[in-house]
């Protein structure tokens, strides 16, 4: 089984979010980058397929040279090889177009992508890639088993979950649940050393129309100060929730 894991290179959760150039660009100054958590859950599941069912795992990212440490980390965790598509992603559709090209050339059986990235929160790349590739697509996937070409998987739905059957080739949008937090792997020294010599191939981007464009960023207005209520005056809380906030 050939698996492709799509990796988004995103600011660490604790990063300060600021913008530069008249609020048109994200300020990368002092920002630590990580593998997008939803992608990392999927990558870990892919490594299990590699260890248990002999799959090969390729990781791919659309981005400039600055994203390579993130791909090397994925290699250190256990991916066999990496591809970097040398372009600055402009929107979700642009990224999906690039991924569809990689999928066409690599004939992957299973494509794993986090259901949403932590930076732009678009949640559109896995589905668009599937639609462009003609692959089956299951979003919010929290469990998957593959036997030959047959797939049994579980999707999280609002207020529960749903078990489905389908077949390869397939794209899944992953989140926590596909593996748990405790299953995530921290690269060990041996992994880091071998990652240095694993192939990281760079390809150029294909053309894609600019369907959407991020024109500007804004930070939320500072929120008003908290109102503290004495634990001995719970009537005040109820009164505020009812008359001021009007939520009960």
């Amino acid at each position: 089984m050939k698996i492709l894991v799509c990796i988004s290179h995103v600011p660490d959760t604790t990063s300060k979010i600021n913008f530069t150039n008249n609020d048109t660009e994200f300020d990368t100054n002092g920002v630590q980058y990580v593998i997008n958590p939803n992608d990392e859950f999927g990558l870990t599941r892919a490594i299990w397929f590699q260890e248990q069912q002999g799959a090969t795992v390729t990781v791919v990212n659309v981005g400039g040279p600055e994203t390579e440490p993130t791909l090397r980390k994925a290699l250190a965790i256990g991916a066999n090889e990496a591809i970097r598509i040398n372009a600055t992603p402009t929107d979700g559709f642009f990224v999906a177009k690039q991924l569809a090209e990689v999928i066409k050339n690599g004939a992957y059986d299973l494509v794993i992508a986090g259901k949403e990235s932590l930076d732009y929160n678009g949640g559109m790349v896995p589905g668009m890639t599937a639609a462009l590739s003609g692959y089956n697509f299951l979003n919010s996937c929290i469990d998957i088993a593959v036997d030959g070409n047959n797939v049994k998987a579980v999707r999280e739905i609002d207020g529960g979950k749903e078990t489905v059957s389908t077949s390869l080739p397939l794209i899944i949008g992953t989140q926590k649940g596909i593996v748990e937090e405790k299953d995530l792997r921290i690269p060990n020294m041996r992994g880091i050393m071998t990652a240095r010599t694993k192939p990281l191939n760079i390809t150029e981007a294909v053309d894609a129309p600019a369907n959407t464009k991020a024109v500007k960023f804004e930070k939320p207005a500072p929120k008003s100060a908290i109102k503290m209520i004495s634990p001995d005056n719970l009537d005040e809380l109820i009164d505020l929730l009812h008359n001021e906030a009007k939520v009960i």
Partner: protein
Amino acid sequence: MSILIYAESAEGKFKKVAFEIASYAKKVADSLDTTVTALTINNDNVADLAKYGIDKVLKVNNDKLVSFNAKAYADVIKQAAQQENTKLVILSSSTDSIYLSSLVAVNLEAGLASNVVGLPLSTTPFQVKRNAFSNKAFNITEINTDVKVIGLAKNSYGLFENASTLTEEAFNPNLDDNDFEIKVESVEKTSGKVSIADADIVVSGGRGLKGPENWGLIEDLAAVLGAATACSKPVSDLGWRPHGEHVGQTGKPVATNLYIAIGISGAIQHIAGINASKVKVVINTDPEAPFFKVADYGIVGDAFDVVPRLIEKLKAFKAQNA
């Protein structure tokens, strides 16, 4: 030319998000001098849509569409959009509609803006404001395609009644066998409880509750308020509560009217996941807990003392205001 919305239902009744996107679409339609058409799938009681300004309903009744199937549903939405010569498709941010939106956008060669939080800032060029960076910033996105798809963030616009006269029309899409390559085998719903996605109020517990045996406090408070229950990441990692209840950056997102955090310190990852909630209340013994920096109302106190008394007071309040 009219705007098309997909009005989702569950068990034969419209979801609240269906009325929210209807309210939103009506307002946008007024500014564009057009009307709103709603697409419904296997729902016979569409009259309620007239309360929210819908002019026309395309009713699909098809046994093949009883279970949600993203590819087939996206195909149906595409065909409806083409029949109506729609330039703007509006979807909700339910789990199913997020799943559909990217497929619909590619089907229609449309630009997609998801997580949209307000009315378009301008219609030529078409610009919308959307949540980004896990609610830590907004991103103004321009959609440049002829046909546009937007996903409205949950609870970001609200419901606005606007009576209209509804025309109902049967719609019979052509379904392709290829649309059904994913088959639903079974559905497991958390029975008898309000789901986090549908709730107006969420009561959430953290490690301050000291153990799963104390969750009755959270459940009792939720029951009085008609709220869903949730928990912080450490609580689900410790196995005190099922993962489906974990809210936060890597858990479920919460965008509710009222979020009550009990014994949750408020790690940045937790706040990122719940920050879209309108009103936040924190109850914690530690006055230095970071949650106090983001909440609207705070009580420094012991949950085991405060919550039982709060439940009793809320019961009395509810009885009086019933």
